[in-house]
């Protein structure tokens, strides 16, 4: 973990609300794991006050680059989208644990809902590099909410769904699950809205296959000190709170308490 000012090498709008941000951050590019994230200070003013967490979408050690793919949601992401090439950003990271990739190559299913697919790009790339066979289910509310739909197939078979039917199969990403057979896979990874993750878990648990999910909780510090990002997890018979930032954001889906918030 480092705190540094990093230069914006490029910032481009991909779709109506998605932006791809390329940062010069060689130290992070060298050490990052897929699924880890960074905390960016989007403004020098006191409102918005806190840093904003963003998954690392991609990285290139040779060029010393790190990429963030983000959606404009509120004032912080709006400010970020208004930054210009050459600006510097105060970045803290890499943070969190990241996805774990079993040593022996096998078949992986990656399921991403909306902007939740952002970290799956780097994961797919890593899996691909380690000779895993990758299948991707990419869903979004509409076409403009799909993360790089053209390009994902670079890493493996890609099935696309949109809620409004503007592209691929019409319906939620979970409705495409019957198109793939869980037992074919050695490892499932998912990132997206919590109801989607819960539905995927319900489907995956039947087969007992390992599912890693990346959770999204509101964060203050991002580094395990404020205890603000608590999510209930099972620890033996007990339910305790895990820190999504430092003990996650990736969890074994079996540990997560899905249907109880207390």
């Amino acid at each position: 973990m480092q705190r540094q000012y990093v230069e914006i090498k490029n910032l481009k709008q991909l779709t109506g609300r998605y932006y791809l941000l390329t940062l010069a951050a060689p130290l992070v590019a060298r050490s990052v794991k897929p699924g880890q994230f960074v905390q960016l200070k989007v403004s020098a003013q006191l409102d918005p006050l806190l840093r904003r967490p963003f998954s690392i979408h991609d990285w290139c050690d040779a060029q010393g680059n790190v990429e963030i793919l983000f959606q404009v949601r509120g004032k912080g992401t709006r400010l970020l989208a208004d930054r210009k090439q050459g600006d510097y950003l105060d970045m803290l990271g890499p943070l969190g644990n990241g996805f774990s990739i079993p040593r022996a190559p096998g078949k992986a299913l990656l399921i991403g809902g909306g902007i939740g697919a952002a970290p799956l790009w780097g994961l797919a790339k890593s899996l691909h590099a380690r000779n895993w066979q990758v299948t991707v289910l990419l869903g979004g509310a509409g076409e403009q909410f799909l993360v790089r739909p053209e390009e994902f197939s670079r890493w493996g078979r890609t099935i696309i769904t949109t809620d409004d039917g503007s592209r691929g199969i019409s319906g939620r990403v979970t409705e495409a699950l019957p198109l793939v057979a869980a037992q074919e896979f050695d490892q499932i990874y998912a990132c997206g809205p919590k109801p989607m993750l819960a539905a995927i878990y319900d489907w995956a648990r039947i087969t007992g296959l390992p599912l890693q999910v990346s959770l999204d909780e509101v964060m203050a510090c991002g580094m395990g000190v404020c205890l603000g990002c608590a999510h209930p997890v099972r620890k033996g018979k007990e339910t305790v709170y895990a820190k999504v930032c430092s003990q996650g954001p990736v969890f074994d889906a079996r540990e997560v308490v899905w249907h109880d918030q207390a």
Partner: protein
Amino acid sequence: MTRPDLTTHIGPLTLKNPVMTASGTFGYGLEFAPLLDLHALGAVVVKGLTLAPRRGNPPPRVVETASGLLNAIGLENPGVESFLKEILPQLEKYAVPVIVNISGNTLDEYALLAARLNDTAVSAVEVNISCPNVKQGGLVFGTVPEQAAEVVAAVRANTSLPVIVKLSPNVTDIVGIARSVAAAGADALSLINTLLGMAIDIKRRRPVLGNVFGGLSGPAVKPVAIRMVWQVSQAVDIPVIGMGGIVSTEDALEFIMAGATAVAVGTGNFINPQATVEIIKGLEEYCIKENIAKIDDLVGIAWKDGQNGK
């Protein structure tokens, strides 16, 4: 000019500089070791401890507000035993004074906590009196001068460590509480704790926080904190540790000039995890530029110089 003297005295405790961390915003310090030299800090104040472990409040626990942060962590902590066994030994290695913030729901709990920390590597206790007194229908100890004094007396009787008392700002008369607590034997006062606040999620039409209410911190509350430090530092003879919205050297100077002998960075650590060390450097530079030999000479200068304020 020679290096300015940043040494600070908090009752019997001597700190190498006046910059500490605010409880609950710096974890147990160890988390910051990759980012800064812990040994450079005046002191590390750790997350509030209770006798037994506490799992804390249901999420969501934090929400950003205009220049502020609302939190309802619910004092999640591993309990004092686990802290002493597993965390303190690691923290000791950094040779920085460790101040333990303690919370209880009864006088006994405070007394037991104080006794337990005695004869450990801990440098001082900070008594968080913003807790509900379960024997008095949940009335917050820190809002009633007599009850606040009782907590302090109970702690005082059970420890030989310096006792810092952390005041709640959610009161009509902060000076009354401060006087009462000082009379009960506090060595120093910390202020302010968070302001009671809340936020509504207009999409869900429900409170945002799992706990409904939360504590407001950050730059938004600084004017209230400065006012209370100004009032209290003129009313009592013990040192005041000022906090509430400090993110920069200028903020720290405001508190010191208002009467704070030391300052603590809280929410500021989330915005800039290196804020503490940058502020220490900034204070040193300020003293050099302004030809101030001892930082102590600035404490309360805004009311010591000129006529007394109201």
